[in-house]
């Protein structure tokens, strides 16, 4: 058998989630194994490979065999992969989740995906500009600077139909045109990388996995608009993304893709990274601009829009990370190729962070127009543990929950908005019958209440009143008329808040009332939480017929609330019980009953 050690290449996914699952140890294990055996097999790193539910992920590319992806790799498995696959030339099929030329069950995760934004994610080393260039990177910029006028770029963007991926879905080409047509020599471009939705990580994965794609898109925008300076405003908690961006900026300056007289075109452009300081409202464009200027990040009234009066009162174009990452692809492949995906009003693809009660959760990119059902059940593989789908939350704190009756809608801006939710930036959290919708509404409202900047009375005080009511309902003290009070307050906040935070803060509450009113009613009238989530509404009891007196629950209870003779039925003292659920988990006979 031929020695395959140098005809293979090993790539470990080292994004934040990979590292969390132990990928760094797996990487080291390969290093050690290669050293001990004296193998010179190249060992690389990459960003999010996409199958986040199977982390740690390792790709082995072998000449003649193609690409094999191993999932859930442990340090112990590394020796066998090296011995059998890299040395022996035979993939270890039992550890594989994807194999070129053979259909494994997890392939269903990719069937419906179209990866344009994520074209390089999980394939290239994000810290290598050479790998980016080899994958076609900076072709779009080269084409834009050497073959196209700014007007042609704007026209291409308009024709592509790309709409902003930060949430509001404003047509990007139109926005660029507005900034381009403003008088004045000094203009700015900004990347909104503040990713605020507290359950989503699309932008982080793009920045960590393919930072050059965002830089390239930004530079094309700067040329189209006539900006000489750009800023990337990154969320405070994204240290790895910031490090990779800074590295990408330095590397592209060195290669002449940034800086003075880019590619000999006479166009010059510089980029700086600004780190946020922890305020969700700074994702709003006018607040973000205030923050870049070194002020408190408070939104201001629009118009004037940033395109007319933005950073330092100059015309400014601001787009989301994913929006910019689409740009090089569109310029390289043409507007028509992009517009071939999607629906009449929503073109191209959208990246979602598919999470929650889902079998295959991760970063997915699907063409617009696919149904929610297909994303959840085909891409995501449905609900785990034989549970039942209940709702999917789209758009985070500004969005809403879409119930089963609407999951056949197409994913496009208009259809999603009709359900009361919003497309949002791409958070997609799946919930099953054990998720309490009142609790979820309370969760989001708590978040927006904390993050309100305080400028508008209704946003500041109204959300607090709503939260008090929800607290009351979830702790079993809901009153007659609370639902109506929530609806009324919600409407008032929507209509009298200045920025999108306040205007959309009631959405999670209003949509759950709209679709799950019965759950609110059960909490208020029957003091019952149908999903068994709201602790104050639960009671723990032991079924005397099922209890065999094994005493496991007695040992599990941290507060000594369970008592009983060995081999005799046990009882729970409901006064002492803190509803920690430990006894139910400990019992092997399902004798602990929660109601």
């Amino acid at each position, binding site marked *: 058998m031929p020695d395959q050690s140098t005809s293979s290449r090993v790539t470990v996914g080292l*994004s*934040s*989630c990979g*590292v*969390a*699952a*132990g990928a*760094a*140890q797996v990487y080291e294990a390969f290093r050690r194994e290669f050293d001990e055996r004296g193998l010179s097999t190249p060992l690389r790193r990459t960003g999010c490979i996409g199958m*986040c*539910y199977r*982390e740690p992920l390792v790709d082995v590319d072998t000449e003649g065999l193609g690409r094999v992806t191993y999932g859930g790799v442990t340090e112990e498995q590394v020796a066998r992969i090296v011995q059998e696959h890299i040395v022996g030339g035979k993939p270890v099929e039992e550890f594989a989740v994807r194999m070129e030329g053979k259909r494994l069950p997890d392939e269903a995760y990719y069937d419906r995906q179209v990866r344009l934004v994520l074209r390089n994610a999980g394939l290239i080393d994000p810290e290598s500009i050479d790998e980016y260039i080899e994958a076609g990177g900076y072709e779009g910029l080269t084409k834009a600077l050497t073959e196209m006028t700014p007007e042609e770029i704007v026209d291409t963007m308009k024709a592509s139909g790309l709409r902003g991926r930060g949430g509001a879905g404003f047509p990007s080409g139109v926005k660029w045109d507005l900034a381009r047509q403003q008088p004045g020599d000094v203009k700015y471009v900004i990347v909104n990388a503040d990713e*605020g*939705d*507290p*359950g*989503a*990580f699309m932008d*982080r*994965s793009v920045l960590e996995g393919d930072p050059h794609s965002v830089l390239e898109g930004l530079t094309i925008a700067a040329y189209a608009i006539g900006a000489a300076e750009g800023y990337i405003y990154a969320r*405070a*908690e*994204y240290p790895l993304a910031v490090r990779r961006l800074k590295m990408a900026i330095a590397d592209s300056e060195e290669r002449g893709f940034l800086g003075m007289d880019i590619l000999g075109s006479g166009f010059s452009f510089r980029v700086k990274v*600004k*780190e*946020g*300081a*922890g*305020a*969700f409202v700074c994702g709003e464009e006018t607040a973000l601009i205030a*923050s*870049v*200027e*070194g*002020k*408190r*990040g408070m939104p201001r009234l629009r118009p004037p829009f940033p395109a007319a009066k933005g950073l*330092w009162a100059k015309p400014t174009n601001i787009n989301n990370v994913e929006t910019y990452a689409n740009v090089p692809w569109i310029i390289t492949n043409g507007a028509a190729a992009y517009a071939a995906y999607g629906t009449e009003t929503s073109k191209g693809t959208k990246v979602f*962070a598919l*999470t*929650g*009660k889902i079998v295959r*959760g*991760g970063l997915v990119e699907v063409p617009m127009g696919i149904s929610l059902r297909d994303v959840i059940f085909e891409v995501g593989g449905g609900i785990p543990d034989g549970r039942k789908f209940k709702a999917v*939350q789209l758009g*985070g704190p500004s969005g809403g929950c879409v119930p089963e009756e609407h999951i056949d809608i197409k994913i496009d801006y208009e259809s999603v908005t009709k359900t009361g939710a919003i497309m949002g930036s791409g*958070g997609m*959290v799946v*919930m099953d019958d054990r*998720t309490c919708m009142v609790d*979820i509404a309370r*969760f*989001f409202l708590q*978040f927006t209440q904390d993050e309100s*900047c305080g400028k508008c009375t209704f946003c500041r005080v109204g959300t607090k009143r709503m939260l008090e009511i929800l607290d009351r309902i979830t702790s079993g003290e809901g009153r007659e008329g609370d639902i109506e009070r929530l609806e009324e307050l919600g409407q008032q906040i929507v209509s009298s808040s200045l920025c999108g935070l306040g205007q959309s803060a009631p959405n999670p509450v209003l949509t759950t009332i709209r679709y799950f009113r019965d759950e609110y009613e059960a909490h208020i009238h029957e003091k019952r939480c149908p999903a068994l989530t709201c602790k104050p509404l639960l009671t723990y009891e032991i079924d005397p017929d099922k209890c065999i007196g094994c005493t496991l629950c007695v040992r599990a209870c941290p507060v000594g609330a369970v008592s009983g003779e060995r081999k005799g039925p046990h009882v729970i003292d409901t006064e002492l019980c803190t509803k*920690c*659920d*430990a006894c139910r988990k400990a019992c092997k006979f399902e004798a602990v009953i929660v109601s």
Partner: protein
Amino acid sequence: MANTAGPDVATPEQLSVVDRIVAEFSTLRGALIPMLQQVQEEIGYLPPVIMERIAERSGVPPARIFGVASFYSQFRFEPVGRHIIRVCEGTACHVQGAVDVVEAVCDELGVAEGGTTEDGKFTVETVACLGCCSLAPVIMIDEDTFGRLTPEQARDIVRNYGTAGDEGGAKA
């Protein structure tokens, strides 16, 4: 981190750190936030004496500095523990039971959210989404992330952290 002095007095080292940073940033536009970030990075937190010194040296009015610093949740006015525990309270983690994990961590250490243990070992913070929702619920101690946690595992992790040779990484 030289955070030994109380909030009322600053050590000469701390003052010279501030002076150096202010000098470095003073010529840049919109530099107040990066300047505060750098000072906090090196001193650990922003007590009033330090902010007053920044005001004095930079010429920015103290009211503006306090105003900006208090607006952003990243800035701390109290010293922090040697290790920072960040418990994720993002949506995915919430749906998978993060509330019980937060409770377990706080109870195990005897602190409230945002608090620091008496021995100064840990500060417990809650954050929204650590970017590994597929491993929810998640906590992070300094740079180490732990995923797919039960409340009991979370207790064990904080109880044993820093006592044995724990390298981190989720035993998911």
